[in-house]
């Protein structure tokens, strides 16, 4: 058990380093932009923080609703995303199993393609 864990960690160690960097870069950007900023925002009067110091107030920000297209796209994305998750493990063993795996893979992709053709022809990918 212990050995397996350590082996897994060995495999994933580069990923860990990568993840640390990936977190550190945007984190440092945020941190330094606060730490090195010359303007003390909280002390500035409100007018100075506005894009234009004078002029007509734009009023409270309007509540902007997203169109339903975002929602539809996200939903379709989930469907195809899950298909990818299912394809990945089969793709890994394709060469071991051979033609049979390819045939089953093809069936899965064919069904996926039907969904894709349908979605496309129905215009669900067009922005409204």
């Amino acid at each position, binding site marked *: 058990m212990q050995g397996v864990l350590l082996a897994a960690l060995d495999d994933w160690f580069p990923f860990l380093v990568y993840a640390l960097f990936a977190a550190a870069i945007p984190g440092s950007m945020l941190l330094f932009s606060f730490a090195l900023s010359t303007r003390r925002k909280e002390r500035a009067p409100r007018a100075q923080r506005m894009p234009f110091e004078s002029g007509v107030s734009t009023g409270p920000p309007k509540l902007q609703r997203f169109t339903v297209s975002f929602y539809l796209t996200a939903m379709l994305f989930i469907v195809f995303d899950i298909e990818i998750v299912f394809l990945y493990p089969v793709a890994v063993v394709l060469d071991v199993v051979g033609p049979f795996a390819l045939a089953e893979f093809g069936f899965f992709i064919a069904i996926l393609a039907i969904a894709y053709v349908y979605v496309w022809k129905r215009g669900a990918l067009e922005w*409204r």
Partner: protein
Amino acid sequence: MPLEAPVEVMLAASAGNVLVWVVWVVAALALLSSGIAVVLFTNPFYSALSLIGNLASLAVLYLLLSGEFVAGAQVIVYAGAIVIMFVFVLAYLGGRADAPWAGGPTLQAAAAVVAAAAIALEVIVVIALAAGDQLSDTAEVTGAFGSPAEIGDLFLSDHLLAFEATSIVLLVAAVGGVILGSAMPQRSKAGAD
């Protein structure tokens, strides 16, 4: 995977592997703090962002349990797609900050406390059992366990039909989503005309 794996992780630490221990502690702390953050933020967008952190740190714990494929799926599907869906829904609804606890102690709050207490009790029982060596069955984990190849093998043998049926269920889901989702703007357009 049974629940004693974190304990095993600790054992590994006592054996001198500090790195596993560090990763486990960091992931567990991130999991807890992001979970608390999801609940505490009043802005639903921040809650959704914390949820991504929550799901990602959970994926790290899955990795430590050698559930590589589950960890990957967790990141790709949950953190990648489902939370994006949450964010879009929030945006669709306007994403206004919601005032929590507005109604005082409601039935929902009471139910949440009861459920949390039940889970806490469960955790305590499991830890106690593990400490008393009651959960002594060691997991039979081979090197390939939980790896994508192992799962792909199962998809093509024992669960072939389930694998293919999943594609059909997803096809139906896509068709249904398009039917119900794309019909609505047409209707509102017709209403505006």
